[in-house]
């Protein structure tokens, strides 16, 4: 059983790391602010979600697991809000140069 959980952890955390890598490549390669924000927020949401999901079997129930999930939810909240704010600021700058 623990072997299955360990394999699950390795697969999920690796998948999360892949999304972070993809997000970083997007940040470096995409042409404008809005698409770069798109790449970054995807990495946060999906990458961190997969890392947290992979770590859950290794964390101690209940408090460590709840803390991990809370960290992911806060990162989601912060990423979504800051993404919106930055996108608005970028659009304002575009319309009034």
């Amino acid at each position, binding site marked *: 059983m623990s072997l299955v959980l360990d394999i699950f952890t390795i697969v999920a955390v690796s998948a999360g790391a892949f999304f972070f890598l993809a997000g970083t490549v997007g940040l470096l390669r995409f042409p404008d602010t809005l698409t770069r924000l798109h790449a970054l927020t995807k990495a946060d949401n999906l990458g961190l979600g997969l890392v947290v999901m992979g770590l859950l079997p290794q964390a101690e129930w209940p408090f460590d697991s709840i803390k991990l999930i809370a960290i992911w939810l806060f990162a989601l*909240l912060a990423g979504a*809000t800051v993404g919106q*704010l930055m996108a608005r600021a970028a659009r304002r700058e575009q319309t009034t140069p």
Partner: protein
Amino acid sequence: MTLALAVDISLTLLVLAVAGWIIAVRDTFAAMIGFVAYGLLLALVWVRLAAPDVALTEAAIGGGLTGALLIGAAARLRGTEAAARAEYPGALTRTLAAVLAVTVAAALAIGVLALPDPTPTLAPAAAANLATTGVGNPVTAVLLAFRAMDTLLEAIVVLLALLGVWSLAPDRAWGGCPGPRRLVDPDGVLAWLARLLPPIGIVVGLYIFWIGADLPGGKFQGATILAAMWLLVIWAGLADTPPISRTWLRVLLVAGPLVFIVIGFAGSITAGAVLAYPEGHAKPLIVAIEIALMPTLVLTLALLVAGAPQRIPPQ
């Protein structure tokens, strides 16, 4: 080479690279963003050195609060950036500055490397006397019992810094509200976040403050989180900064250091030394000082970021 060592080496290289980039980059704003990232990386370094108390403080004060202060300063300096770049120092000045910086860095490195092995430490003495203070976290015991003088002076220094910021106020704005009035869409994203996050942030801030007696945490870290929540509400336009002439504000700002000083001098009568606690009463007195310092720190840290009073005081 183990995996942990590989992580440590990459972390060290990353910290050095970010530090170098902050110095090399020309744009002040970009440098400040780099500084915040540097603070967060440094917090990770402290975690790897098994110093979670320092890591929390670095993330909260070093990365967060100082970062916010510096970004505010960079935003104010934007207009003068071009003029500052025009009078870029000559090759001689830059060489001298580089030589000075390298000398200081080398002296520090030699000082650290020349320390005898094992490094002289008071940690065993602090751990042995931990029980006399009644608190479980040795860092808190050092900050509020063994080296209480440092913490007292620290609390006063932060207050003096706030007075320094306030003294930049124009004469007509003296006694008025710090910072501009924020006009933000009341149904916008920022206002929504400022309604959603503070209840959670206040619980987390108070938890970190309270847990500091026994586990990593404490008043500075907790106060930074509470100050951040207050600033979020202010920046979202849901509340305003209080005019600095308000009596309650001034009382709360002075209360923390004052309680600390009173308890400290009471120690010279009841326990035989300034800032000593009478036997058996250390824990309640430490908690009393922490509780008195908490509102002072929250207000001081938040108002430091809010800036100098800018608006005419209300009549």
